[in-house]
């Protein structure tokens, strides 16, 4: 990933969700003359979490950067902050060509489902790039956006997941992401994937 300034860092911020957190964090970056190069955040169960890649023209001590952000916390609770230098390329590089798929599972909730499922994916060198889990009453919905190495035969993966689903009592499907792009967005294909 290309950053605006040469000295890049990755930050993680967690807090009780409330107004003002993003303003506080970004305020510290601006004050140090830096730039936010990428950012993703979510709010789950009343908790806020954010991951950022930031860069500065000058070297910044990671401990100092984290301390400044903690100090900027708006009223209503502390900010938990982790910071480290951003190293490119990321660890996921060099895994060979992959394609984006979406795995969905629906069934009766019980402890250990995500572990069983993710342990199987890990064993197949399948990277989870986005994971969503929600329970409505006793039932759960799992949506995992994953990168599957092109060397795998999809029919066999689906058969393995079916087997796990049967044992654990849920329905699971693996489908190429383009079907979701085509049916929801204005373009037919996802970015660069065919």
């Amino acid at each position: 990933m290309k950053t605006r300034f040469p000295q890049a860092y990755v930050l993680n911020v967690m807090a009780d969700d409330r107004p003002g957190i993003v303003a506080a964090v970004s305020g510290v970056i601006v004050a140090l003359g830096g730039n936010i190069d990428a950012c993703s955040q979510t709010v789950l169960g009343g908790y806020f979490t954010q991951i950022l890649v930031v860069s500065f023209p000058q070297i910044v001590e990671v401990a100092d950067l984290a301390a400044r952000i903690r100090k900027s916390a708006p009223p209503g609770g502390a900010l938990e902050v982790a910071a480290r230098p951003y190293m490119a390329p990321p660890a996921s590089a060099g895994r060979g060509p992959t394609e984006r798929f979406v795995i969905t599972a629906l069934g009766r909730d019980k402890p250990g489902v995500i572990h069983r499922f993710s342990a199987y994916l890990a064993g197949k060198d399948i990277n989870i790039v986005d994971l969503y889990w929600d329970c409505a009453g006793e039932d759960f919905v799992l949506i995992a956006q994953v990168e599957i190495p092109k060397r795998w035969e999809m029919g066999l993966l689906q058969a393995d997941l079916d087997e796990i689903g049967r044992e654990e009592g849920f329905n699971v499907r693996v489908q190429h992401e383009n079907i979701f792009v085509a049916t929801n967005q204005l373009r037919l294909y996802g970015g660069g994937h065919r």
Partner: protein
Amino acid sequence: MLRTDEILSTIQMLHAEHLDVRTVTLGLSVSDCAATNVDNVCRKLREKILRRASNLVRVCDRIGAKYGIPVTNKRLAISPAANLLAGHGVGAALQVAQTLDEAVRECQIDLVGGFTALVHKGISSGDAIVMESLPWVLSSTQRVCASVNVASHRAGINMDAVRQMGELLLKIADATAAQRGFGCAKLVVFSNIPEDNPFMAGAYHGDGEADAAINIGVSGPGVVCSALRRRIQLGGQLTLGDLAEEIKITSFRVTRVGELIGREVAAELGIPFGIVDLSLAPTPQVGDSVGEILRTLGIEKIGAPGSTAAVAMLTDAVKKGGAFASSSVGGMSGAFIPVSEDAALAEAAAKGHLTLEKLEAMTSVCSVGLDMIAIPGDTPPETIAAIIADEMAIGVINNKTTGVRLIPVPGGKAGDFVEFGGLFGSATVMDIRNAGASAAFVRLGGRIPAPIQSLRN
């Protein structure tokens, strides 16, 4: 990154509402299989089909699995058999049809269309052989489908051909009497036949097409119906405009599924992608019904006043959504109302709510015609021809495709129940009013001239 709500809504459409790709149809020109000796014709035909189509089923299944969407039917549509049969005889026609039947069976392809004659202005020698052979072909083969184009916007209606088709339908029904006249379910009489239609029984590969093309038919009545019900359950002051919008959005999504799968199948087979046919194609499965959509739109008894307006709105909304989703829309692209193949329509016909005349009115605003309608086996041939002529007139005057797939049930009387099985469903034999009262008109023969609207240049 995809949004969770997008993924969930697609999952619902694909799995809870059973969206499938109804058909991937390989269009294939077989004009290079012509020969003076029929054995050579059959040998070349078989070789070409095995060479071009033997991978179709495997590729469709693999790509269906990749996207989690079944491709229900894999079909073949050839260029008109009449072109191969000029200079041969009825025996040769039968031999060609049996070769087709056998070759597609080997490729595990469900049906093959294109046993076709184009006779809208006149009947050539090859066309005459195709037409004459239909009772034998449709009774002695399993997978061969036939079509005869008897009318066009530019040529008018060939009433000699229409009259012959009236007689032929009875002969085909007799030849397949043990199956209640089922042979007629594999034959469509058309006006303005499309050259790239993927749906059976009327698919054929037109002369304007490349050597081969992949054409797609999507399903969708069940998905449209569920989307409408969900929208209605959300409440609020809904108008028909709001419901048309919902149909349009659903049609967009359904069409996209077809285009995505079609393009990938075509690329993998190394064959040009042709078209997506937007037609809502019902099946006898409960819920997968155009009739059910009309009920959801508030037509309590299908065939009641308002049915024509409802089906017009449905067809138009489907076209608008589909046309935005794909730049390759073709085929028939409307809403099918095949009586036996649609549980709600079959029920309405059985209860007497839906009559032949109302069906005819509905076909004037949607594709595709009087489809899969069982009629009494003693209907006079001139009356069958006159029913065909009426439907052809709707197509010719409105410059649209219309088709007729009538099944005279041998020994069947109005009100009898007949079962055709599988995708063909079951139906109650419909009453034909004023049977025999148009014989003199039909016997005049000749050609009903092309309408004034055909002079467009």
